[in-house]
């Protein structure tokens, strides 16, 4: 699995967004930061809670100049139907059929043939700024991802459970 400081592997993959099929590349994303979250499969019962969670929090991520991109091994048509099933999503779902992108990020579960439940936050230079993986049966915390984005964008050293407005030292958290 990639770690903070690693260069994020580029991608140019089919995707579903706004009930349409298209392509999306990492270089084509203009936002300052990118939340790239891998999830096991479309049409599952744990994934939608976090996919919907990201959808509901998209305005907060936008305010932080951060794009959200979901990725799974399902094809783009499946993504389109899945997004429609969920009532529409405000971010694209990448089709990583075959799991090559998941392999490049080191989060491919060969036994299941799917990606792990993993989240990467990429900075403006498209380096990995943050990486975390959860067990397949445990959904992620969208609010925690947002908190980390804010902490990263603050440019400061942030103590545990830092939230915007709390003290943060530019030099030494102690």
């Amino acid at each position, binding site marked *: 699995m990639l770690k903070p400081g690693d260069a994020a592997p580029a991608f140019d993959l089919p995707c579903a967004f706004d009930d349409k099929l298209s392509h999306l590349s990492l270089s084509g994303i203009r936002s300052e930061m990118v939340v790239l979250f891998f999830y096991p*499969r479309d*049409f599952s*019962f*744990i994934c939608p809670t976090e996919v919907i969670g990201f959808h509901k929090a998209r305005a907060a991520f936008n305010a932080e100049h951060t794009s959200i991109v979901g990725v799974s091994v399902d094809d783009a048509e499946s993504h389109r139907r899945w997004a429609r099933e969920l009532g529409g999503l405000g971010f694209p779902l990448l089709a990583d059929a075959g799991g090559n992108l998941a392999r490049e990020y080191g989060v491919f579960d060969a036994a299941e043939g799917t990606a792990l439940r993993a989240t990467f936050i990429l900075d403006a230079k498209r380096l990995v700024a943050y990486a975390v993986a959860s067990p397949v*049966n445990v959904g992620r915390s969208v609010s925690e991802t947002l908190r980390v984005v804010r902490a990263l964008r603050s440019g400061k050293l942030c103590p545990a459970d830092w939230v915007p407005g709390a003290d943060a030292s530019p030099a030494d958290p102690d």
Partner: protein
Amino acid sequence: MAALDPQAKRRTFERLANVREIVFGIQDGVLTTAGVLAGLSGAVAQRSQVILAALASTAAGALSMGAGAYLGTRAETRILRSEMRRVRQESQGQPYVVQESLLAALAKEGLSREAGYRIVQLLSAAPQALYNTAEEKIYGLAGATFGNPLSDGLLMGVAFLLGALVPLLPFMLVASLRLGLIAGLATTAIVLFAVGYAFEGRLSDQRYPAVAGLRFLGIAMGAAAIGYVIGLLIAPLGAVPAG
């Protein structure tokens, strides 16, 4: 074409679930009694003593087998029901896990992920249906899995009794001890063949039911013959030294 009656089919399946007790009971009753008749005919001079011993063996065997089947099914059912309750409690605490597992089970049976998802979603509207289906698909547990201790015990006991009568009745009806034994063993072979032919051959729609009958006869008589040979081999160990 006759309309399919699911309830009638269900009753048929429940009855067929008792084939094991019937076949086991008949086979054991036939062979145990034939063994007693053959063994005692060589050792005891009086025919009435052989018959008395065979009757005692039949009564004891039928009761023992019936009680064994009752206790065995009772223990198995209680353990399974307890495990099922535990699984149900765990499932209710983790509905997502149940839904995902059921989805995976349906996918393994050939449904597309999307179709499986919709089915699980529909089932989720009625938790009882969701958990029943999940238990059957994921763990292979279903209502038909559980036997009825009382009926299993009764069936086993009665089957043993009927099986025991197969060699015993000809033996009792023929006056000669030697001819009676031959008649008893002949009916034993015929009935063992018939049980295999009917239960394994005909009921399971085998192409050659006679082969099933012969296989059943061969296995049952083979087991009896091996037991007889082992008896002959270990007999010297129990012999009292002369002098």
